[in-house]
């Protein structure tokens, strides 16, 4: 660390919603007043013990928190190095970490008197989580989903419909998460009077990156306490996969001021970083402005956004949450990547050694662990967030492995 190291890594963003040079509020004027209202309401909610109580109560009794912290003995043995512990957020209601954030945001929407919910989704996990909380609170829900993702993630599309949501396929662009977010923003700008946009990742205009992080930080807070309770110590390394970065920031944030804990974010390298078929915004992108915030983006020399690629529909977004961009620049978090092939191998490794079918997203984190664990001493501890379960991915995996179902 340089002498410019801040006193704390946990006091971002500033009052204008900036994480260093990143973040901010880059939206059409129609949305600005609503974004400012949302910030005010979020500040009131933060100061209101009743809000926190209701959030905690729903997380405990509806989502099933705290999620377990699990020591993975056979994976540890197979890799032959550090002990590997998983934060089991795939055991949450709806099967991923996304619901933590949706509970928080729908409570905010209700406080603001909004009566209609919209969301974007890539893999469909955020769409399912949003449809779930909308059913729970009786609000109509429209989910925008890229047409290609509708195809890749058909089980989640059906889940959303069962939960009463309307799924609108988006054919613009390549029909993936970025295009779904554009369409959700277009809906929002036309319906600001009654509509709340539940953004699924720690990105978008301020205060979204902050509030999504805060709602997801339950992951890291629980894991930190559970690990201390079970082992009496903090992890040496905490690892999470990154698309937009919400599960990673949720895991990392409570550890940012623990200097002994190394933090590793794993982007999707798709078919490899050498070409254009990847979704690693930090490794292969440049700072720019998209979807309301300044952050690292996959883009060409004219600032046109290029399409991300990953076998995982939840990771193929060409940007990343602005706090990650800042954490990369400060050096507090290390970022690496895993390819489609490495993620597929890691997916199978976890199935085989631990009897857990992970989603393709955390399979990227497991791939990074597989590369690092052996070089670490046996008393070292790696903590990884298992942010989603793989039921939704079995068709994609079968296709990639050449298996006909």
């Amino acid at each position, binding site marked *: 660390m340089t002498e410019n190291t801040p006193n704390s890594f946990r006091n971002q963003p500033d009052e204008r919603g900036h994480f260093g040079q990143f973040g901010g*509020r*880059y939206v059409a*004027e129609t949305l600005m*007043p609503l974004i400012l209202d949302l910030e005010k309401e979020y500040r009131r909610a933060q100061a209101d013990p009743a809000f926190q109580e209701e959030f905690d109560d729903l997380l405990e009794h509806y989502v099933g928190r705290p999620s377990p912290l699990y020591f993975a003995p056979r994976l540890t043995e197979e890799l032959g190095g550090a002990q590997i512990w998983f934060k089991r957020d795939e055991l949450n209601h709806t099967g991923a970490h996304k619901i933590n954030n949706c509970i928080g945001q729908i409570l905010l929407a209700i406080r603001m008197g909004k009566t209609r919910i919209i969301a974007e989704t890539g893999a469909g996990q955020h769409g399912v989580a949003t449809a779930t909380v909308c059913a729970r609170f009786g609000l109509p829900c429209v989910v925008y989903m890229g047409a290609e993702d509708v195809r890749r993630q058909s089980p989640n599309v059906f889940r959303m419909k069962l939960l009463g949501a309307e799924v609108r396929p988006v054919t613009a662009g390549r029909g993936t998460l970025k295009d779904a977010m554009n369409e959700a923003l277009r809906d929002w700008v036309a319906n600001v*009077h009654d509509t709340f946009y539940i953004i699924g990742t720690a990105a978008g205009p301020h205060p979204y990156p902050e509030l999504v992080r805060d709602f997801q930080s339950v992951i890291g807070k629980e894991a930190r306490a559970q690990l201390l309770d079970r082992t009496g110590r903090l992890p040496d390394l905490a690892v999470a996969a990154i698309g937009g970065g919400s599960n990673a920031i949720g895991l990392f944030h409570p550890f940012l001021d623990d200097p002994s804990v190394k933090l590793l974010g794993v982007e999707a390298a798709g078919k490899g970083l050498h070409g254009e078929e990847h979704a690693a915004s930090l490794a292969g992108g440049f700072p720019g*402005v998209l979807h309301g915030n300044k952050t690292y983006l996959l883009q060409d020399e004219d600032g046109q956004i290029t399409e991300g690629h990953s076998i995982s529909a939840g990771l193929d977004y060409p940007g990343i949450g602005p706090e990650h961009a800042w954490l990369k620049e400060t050096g507090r978090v290390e970022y690496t990547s895993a390819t489609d092939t490495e993620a597929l191998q890691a997916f199978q490794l976890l199935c085989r050694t631990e009897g857990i079918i992970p989603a393709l997203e955390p399979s990227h984190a497991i791939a990074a662990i597989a590369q690092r664990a052996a070089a670490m001493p046996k008393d070292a501890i790696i903590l990884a967030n298992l942010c989603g379960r793989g039921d939704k991915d079995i068709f994609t995996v079968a296709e990639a492995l050449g298996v006909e179902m």
Partner: protein
Amino acid sequence: MTRLATTFSAPHPALVCFITAGDGDTAANLDALVEGGADVIELGMPFTDPMADGPAIQAANIRSLGAGTTTAEVLRHAAEFRQRHPQVPLVLMGYANPMIRRGPDWFADHCAAAGVDGVICVDLAPEEDPDLGPALRDKGIALIRLSTPTTSDARLPDVLDGSGGFLYYVSVAGITGLQSAAIADIEANVSRIKRHTALPVAVGFGVREPEQAAEIARVADGVVVGSALVRLVEQHGTHAPRHLRDLTARLAKAVHSARKANP
């Protein structure tokens, strides 16, 4: 006096016409707008993710980028327009990322060299002005901000601070080219804005027909038409100039003959 100030000091309201750069024969399309009677040209910079635009302008962006349009070509269209039409104000309209990709000073320098009079950056809120505003103002280029039905009286001063050229009143909360606002709402909002600023106010979003343009011109300093023109480029391709000229002429006649609200 700047070209924009001269235009808005004319005894009649201004017709502001938008097309997307690199969509069709841009030079011929721009000339057709001027021949039809457009007072201000808005030249759209194509972007992969035009989040505030409706289907017509989205499609124009895709056609333009599909044809390989670069930022350098957009600036070249502007510079050549300035050569052909020394007096007609030209404004670039687009999204922040292509404008700041090489740094705000690069963009401001090149706009100035091309003879661009103003820039409308859809997703640059006044809160993020440092990313582009100072560089443009240093070069004498107006940063034209947008005000909307959701912009309150309390917020208007922030929107107006640093604004130049004219204020673009977005008459509907929505994306370009779809719904139209009621004239009473437009009139009330324009007079509300005018209590806060001496800048001319141009009204856009959802303006298609000459009658509608005339109604708005009675209560505003300018009328912006975009999607209706862009649709003609989509329908007629290389034959678009004749159609653009015809629609622009009908719009210009309607706008120019309407009474100006604040002479």
